[in-house]
């Protein structure tokens, strides 16, 4: 019993340390999936709280803790998108910009975010996932594979196809 308690405390410590290290990555991952900064920050916090509550299930899975956190973040995003499924993935009115930003910069930033999220909307869910994890959270293809339950080779293939599609969408978008 005491051993379990010690083990649990150790995992809690790991999680708290990981919060400092990975909060930004998780928030960016969520942001790119949902397109709302404030919601992304809140959901990133919720991800870690949910992880704390389910630490026992982490022990069973044997994943690196960061990958496990991203799995939880993924589930949270899926729940969130399900709840707001009637809305567009990105609604410009909902994109929050920090209060101290210049209004002109804010408008440009809004446009850029809208453009990127619109482009991401043209990808398959798995491709979006790999782009978010790989380029906005900075995970390696092996780590992405652990989060997504795929082999690194499959992830590489998927990311290659995703970038090509993205290029096509963005280029077409610019031309039009």
């Amino acid at each position, binding site marked *: 019993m005491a051993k379990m308690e010690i083990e649990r405390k150790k995992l809690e410590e790991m999680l708290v340390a990981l919060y400092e290290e990975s909060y930004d990555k998780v928030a960016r991952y969520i942001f790119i999936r949902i397109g709302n900064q404030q919601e992304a920050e809140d959901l990133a*916090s919720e991800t870690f709280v949910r992880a*704390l509550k389910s630490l026992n299930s982490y022990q069973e899975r044997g994943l690196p803790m960061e990958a496990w956190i991203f799995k939880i973040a993924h589930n949270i995003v899926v729940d969130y998108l399900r709840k707001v499924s009637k809305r567009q993935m990105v609604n410009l009115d909902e994109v929050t910009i920090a209060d101290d930003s210049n209004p002109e910069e804010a408008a440009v930033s809004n446009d850029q975010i809208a453009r990127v999220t619109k482009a991401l909307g043209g990808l398959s869910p798995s491709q979006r996932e790999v782009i978010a994890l790989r*380029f906005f959270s900075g995970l390696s293809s092996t780590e992405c594979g652990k989060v997504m339950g795929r082999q690194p080779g499959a992830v590489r293939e998927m990311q290659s196809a995703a970038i090509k599609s993205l290029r096509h969408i963005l280029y077409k978008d610019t031309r039009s």
Partner: protein
Amino acid sequence: MSNDFDKILDDCLDRINGGQSVEECLKLYPAFAVELELLLRTISDLQGEVAFVPSEMAKFKGRQQLLQERVRLDAERHTSKIPFLQRFFGQPKLWAPVAAALIVILIGFGLSSMFTPDDGDEPIAVVTPTDTPDSSPTVTPTIASDASPTTSTDISPDVSPDMTPIFTPEITPDTTPSTPGPIVIASVGILEMRVTDAWADYSAINVTINSIEVHLAGSEDEAGWKTVVSGTRSFELLALQGIEDTLGSAKIESGHYTQIRMGVVNCEVITVDGQVHDAKVPSGKFKIVGSYWFNVEADQKTIVTLDIVAKESVHLTGNGQFIFSPTVKVLVGGLAKQPQNGENGSQKKGKHLQQVESVIPIAIAFSRKIGCRFI
């Protein structure tokens, strides 16, 4: 071929994620430069367009949520470890009405038993006043299992000598405690109190306190207060932005603590124009009550930081009077092992704690906005 290209692209993407430029990557794979460039620039542009950095405030709030949840789960586990009877009898408000209700039911049951007509089959009829002592031996065991201490006292003069001993063990005084007492925990831990602050629109806010006490959950009101800081201590609230000032520490009984009270002697506000104002402190002491708070673990050190939010704590009334009415966040900090008994001498002990403390992350903590009520 495609597989090779995917690997090369993957390697370049790792490099870009690691801070290298597109050009540096292209130099490494000149044979694939044309195709690679298109894809790498797409990603590079994409990353540049969404340069989202979460706010420090959001990260701070998230951290507090996480740490608060941790303390809550810890408290939950701590509570579940206390045996049921100890938890039950340690709560005067819980056991007293239950016991009273039980007694009323049993008295009622006993009285109704006495006045129930004897049908010859029910064992309970044996204890009615009309029965002779000699008539009862065959039914005695059954009565014993149903009887209560209260009924037994009433009926004992009429019951047969065989029955009386069977009732007796049920009325031993040990089965019901006469008064509820706090849970006795012999061990002690160290509690250290600190203070910190966010920002405000003043030049300085000088606060002088003379005591900090914490209250052990489940203890009698006054007896449960443990002194952590005694004697006058002053701090300048705004100088504590982002840092902490240790107010003092004490060895106190380990357990779960849910209240803090701080004696405030005076508060001085210096406005941006350099004028010094005495802020009115509505009451000498203010009490902070939380629904669940912190545990002081045996042989460990717990750090509690009072984050007094200056801008929400000092108010200017219509007639120019400053009032110090603190809004406080409570952060519960890390634990450090206390020196073993063999290590004597206060200097050594202090040094040891200092060393340990320096490696503690500002971790197990939680913060919650709480109302302070003046007493």
